[in-house]
């Protein structure tokens, strides 16, 4: 089978479509992890970490971002055990989910042997001994998984005291390091009144090892751009104006539904909470070819209240995205030069 015969949706077989209903509101939408979800184009959700065709490209991009801007990585001194715990936990999850490519073995002397054929990694390390890895453990393991990683220390509240975040959606990890969970979520509209975030916080405070949970979140992103962090706003911010004036075909190609699968894991040694963010992007022109998703996304975007759209940074083009998706039902927008 040649490349041209693969349907456009094959690349998106693991896409986690985030809308269970026609109305989207913030909720504490957590559910147990490791449960596969069948979709019209494939399946997602059967593991904590997910590797797909973007693996090498995204890891290369992450390495370049970290090299250019070290503030995307931080481990406050008291988080060193949590960083090791996260590192080992992620390697275990990779080995469990991708046994053909990733193997983690405990040697008789207690050291760990890690092999990742996809990345050409083969090394032996001692848990807790920084000198046995080529880099700080959290930063190093961020070169093995597509997920962004935040580690929360539990005191009277949860504090975001470590992480590697290169693919932030309109926020800044460097700015948030050391903040409490409640402070980090301060800017989100509605959730304080509705108690969503305090419930989520209490839930996380009680989270136990070996009982991982997940949720999804979403926004729209212009272009296939993983790094839409506050730090790079000058590069992508103007696109929000630009996209208002492009033609319909370009609009469908540029505007992407951005979905985050977020996993919540109580680390089994340090007791820190590991928050993983796996980002998926699907252009509207592909979304429109999957009929139930096209209809559902159009309804959600048309209904989304202004304050929520503004917080997501999509208020300038949310209405056009909704009407674009509705019109795409006729197929008129999808073929170049098609009649409109």
């Amino acid at each position, binding site marked *: 089978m040649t490349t041209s015969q693969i349907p456009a949706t094959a690349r998106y077989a693991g896409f986690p479509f985030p809308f269970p209903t026609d109305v989207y509101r913030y909720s504490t939408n957590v559910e147990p992890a490791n449960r596969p979800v069948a979709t019209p184009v494939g399946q997602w959700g059967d593991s904590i970490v997910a590797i797909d065709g973007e693996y090498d490209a995204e890891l290369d991009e992450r390495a370049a971002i970290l090299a250019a801007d070290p503030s995307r990585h931080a481990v406050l001194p008291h988080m060193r055990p949590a960083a090791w715990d996260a590192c080992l936990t992620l390697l275990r999850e990779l080995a469990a989910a991708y046994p053909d490519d990733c193997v983690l073995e405990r040697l008789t002397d207690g050291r760990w042997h890690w092999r990742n054929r996809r990345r050409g990694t083969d090394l032996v390390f001692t848990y807790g001994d920084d000198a046995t890895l080529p880099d700080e453990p959290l930063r190093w393991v961020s070169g093995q998984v597509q997920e962004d990683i935040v580690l929360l220390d539990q005191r009277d509240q949860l504090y975001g005291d470590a992480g590697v975040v290169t693919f932030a959606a309109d926020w800044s990890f460097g700015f948030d390091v050391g903040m409490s969970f409640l402070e980090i979520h301060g800017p989100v509209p509605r959730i304080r009144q509705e108690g969503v975030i305090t419930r989520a916080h209490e839930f996380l405070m009680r989270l136990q090892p070996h009982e991982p949970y997940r949720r999804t979140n979403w926004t729209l992103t212009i272009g296939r751009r993983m790094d839409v962090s506050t730090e790079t706003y000058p590069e992508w911010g103007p696109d929000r104006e630009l996209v208002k004036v492009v033609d319909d075909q370009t609009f469908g190609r540029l505007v992407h539904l951005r979905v985050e699968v977020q996993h919540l894991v109580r680390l089994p*040694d*340090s007791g820190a909470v590991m928050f993983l963010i796996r980002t998926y992007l699907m252009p509207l022109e592909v979304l429109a070819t999957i009929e139930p998703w096209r209809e559902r996304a159009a309804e959600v975007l048309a209904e989304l209240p202004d304050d929520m759209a503004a917080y997501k940074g999509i208020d300038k083009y949310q209405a056009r995205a909704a009407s674009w998706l509705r019109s795409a039902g006729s197929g008129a927008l999808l073929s170049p030069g098609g009649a409109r």
Partner: protein
Amino acid sequence: MTLRLVVTALDDSVPGIRSITLADPAGAELPGFVPGSHLAITLGDRTNAYSLTGDGLAPSTYTISVLRVADGAGGSVFVHDRLAAGDLVAARPPRSAFPPVARATRHLLVAGGIGVTPIVSHLRAARRWGRETQVLYAFREGHAAHVDDVLELAPDAELLVDGPDAFMDRLEKVLVDQPLGTHLYVCGPGAMIDAVVSAAAATGWPASRVHLERFGTDALAPGDPFTVRLAKSGITVDVPSGTSLLEALEGAGVTVPNLCRQGVCGECRIQVGAGTPLHRDLFLSDEEKASGSTLMACVSRSEGPTLEVLL
């Protein structure tokens, strides 16, 4: 998730205390645990929680130590009189409710009697991560578990065997002689915990720096059994102790939308027709709980023997 474990060793070298080693029957690695975690084990018809004393990183065995309490609820007597090597037991995965605080500049660990068990696992982690510790361990001479472990892991641990008054004298001196950022952890008999917590408060320790482990578990109590009547379908379903209302309804073939099964997400809310709900969720507001008109089936139960729901 339930673990099936086999008893691989029993140690009765300390009078009145039995130490038990458990392993996976096939020798597989066991779920790791945070220092200070406990293991809830089903022994006979009872489930009891015991602190894990080993190293929680990729463990091949779990070890617990059980004090014989002749007039207790029966779990410890079962362990001492009936448990034998080769026995199979069911356990839930370890739960963490007494973890070390990552930002502490020093860990002041205070143990009384069998309360030393979670302290031992704290000391193992402290050694791995180079944490500064100070240990006070009070016990009755001849009845102390894990003295060798404590002295190996913390050679300068103070062993206090001269009774409660001498212990409190020493504790009060130690409490006022700590660097800023020290956290205090105490595990032991209830009266001892109360005395240590009071002494810490009296010497100006903020409550957020004082951590205590009473024997028991933070998991939701199994609750009393009750009967639920489904007003619309007219059927009744028994909800035994240890089974949630949601599980009981599912077992009777009644579908209730649900997601988190932890009382957080709000999905499994159901309407109450009669009876008084015993709310144990984080979702409903105080006003909603007080009204008694709905409950979250995954965690909440009934105050009385019967509850009617509008299903």
